[in-house]
């Protein structure tokens, strides 16, 4: 039973991962990524980590990939990209090298460090009663690892404040949104400010 679930989930994960890389359309790639994340959630359930499985779906599939899709749609880059252009010089050889070393690392782990896949759960028994998993996780996070949790919270807050500061820097009074009159665009002294006013109106 466990082995069957693992094989099905692993197939979904690998299929999704390959789809992400091979899709020419960014939206399709994001959808394959959702498939991969779901497969990982199934593996979490298989390991009796039900809380992690739920959080995996809520946070990754429900928030992060949605955000990807949102940006893709709003920026209108949902067309197949021209692969002839290399945006960052030397990016592709470097990616090949890093990818090959990752494969080597994983193969080493698989062949040397482990006796071979056992098909068994990492834990030998579920943690206590049915609700025990979530409870244990909460206790560990807010007692042993409370410092790390607080630091992460601080980091996220700094990131949010930073994003707000970067995206909404107000320098001087903003210009009103240019009307249909073409002269207003020519006479507008700060086109940057006009753009920002438009953006804010859209928000």
């Amino acid at each position: 039973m466990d082995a069957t679930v693992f094989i099905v989930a692993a197939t979904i994960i690998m299929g999704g991962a390959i789809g992400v890389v091979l899709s020419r359309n960014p939206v399709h790639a994001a959808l394959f990524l959702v498939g991969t994340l779901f497969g990982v959630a199934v593996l979490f359930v298989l390991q009796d980590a039900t809380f992690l499985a739920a959080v995996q779906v809520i946070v990754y599939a429900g928030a992060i990939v949605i955000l990807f899709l949102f940006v893709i749609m709003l920026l209108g880059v949902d067309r197949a990209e021209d692969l002839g252009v290399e945006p960052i010089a030397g990016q592709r050889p470097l990616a090949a090298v890093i990818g090959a070393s990752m494969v080597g690392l994983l193969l080493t782990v698989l062949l040397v460090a482990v006796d071979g896949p056992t098909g068994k759960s990492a834990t030998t028994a579920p943690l206590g009663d049915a609700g025990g998993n979530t409870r244990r996780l909460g206790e560990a996070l807010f007692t042993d690892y409370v410092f790390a949790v607080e630091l992460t919270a601080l980091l996220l807050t700094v990131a949010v404040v930073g994003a707000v500061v970067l995206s909404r820097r107000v320098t001087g009074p903003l210009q009103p949104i240019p009307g249909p009159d073409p002269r207003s665009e020519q006479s507008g002294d700060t086109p940057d400010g006009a753009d920002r006013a438009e953006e804010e109106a859209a928000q």
Partner: protein
Amino acid sequence: MVLAADPLFDAGVDGRVLVVVLLKVGVAFALLLVAVMLMIWFERKLIGDMQNRIGPAVAGPWGILQTLADGIKLFFKEDLLPDQADRTVFRLAPYLSLVPAFLTFAIVPIGGNFTDGADGTVSLLGRRTLLQVADPPVGILLFLALSSIAVYGVMLAGWSSGSKYPLLGSVRATAQMISYEAALGLSIASVFLVSGTLSTSGIVAGQATWNWNVAATGVVPFLVFVVAGTAELNRPPFDLVEAEQELVGGFHTEYSSIRFALFYLAEFMNMITMSAIAVTLFLGGPNGPILIDGIAWMWPILWFFLKVLAFLFTFVWLRATLPRFRYDQLMDLGWKVLIPVSLGWFLLIAALNVARDRGWPVIVVVAVGMLALLAGSALLSGAIAKAGSAERPAVGSDDREGLHS
């Protein structure tokens, strides 16, 4: 694997357990479909009454078969596929909308006696089982996970249509659903603090003696849940996702025939499921007095359906009464009112829990907590007002301090 806390699986899985599970799945499936059929009729009839007209009256007695007739008509209509559509995603989207709507109902306990220490199980084919399809240990988190999956259906439907009005509708819908999911989750977190469990049957069992969570959490999370839930459903007054005057039909403009029917089905099914979840979380689920002992098993089911019906009536009532929100008002309500309020209330309940554990005087904790919340909200509204006046100065005016929008 721990699949569920249901006593059904305690003695292993055999043929009879399988039959019980299939029976529960089948009943839940059929129940939802029939409920949707009646709900659409109920809404049209009720709106008709509220607007002083008759409503559907032709198909069947009181027009009760109107939905069935509409469904058959939609089924035989031509299935259009726009030229610019992304075919695979266009075909996939309705199912991404419909499947979460079905699955969410699986965690709702629709019956069972939880009073006097009873564990809410009933006997089916000689096996003890809970009257819900699944009782996973993460319980209500499954609802949050599935409602975040349902966003994909709406979002991809609009994008894959390859047309601008559906795209605008789906961008609006996605922004709205993500924004209100935060408030929804925070109000549910208050219930966790009071119940001490994630499992739906556990939450219902904790409300067995009239101590319903709506009072135990102090009403505010319930109100936030209802408002955020209405927005999550894209129901009026938060239905600017499909504002006909601006967006034609919103994200499903390009859909026709049975695919459109699937979206319609999912919308009404979500409404029923959201009502059922609200009843489970805040209104005691199937708990209620048992009035006649002879049919004792039936009363919890009856109470559950009555409570759900009250919610459904309210949704229709809201639609007939309130005008639609403007987009900026919607975002303001979500981010500047509902999320801070539910977060503050969550902190207050957490403080009360600590006070109870440590034996601190409750009155003092409530007073200090309220003062802290008031100070926090004053700071927040001050900051919002300041940001608003800095953003929108009057044209040609340098005096930005004196302006408040």
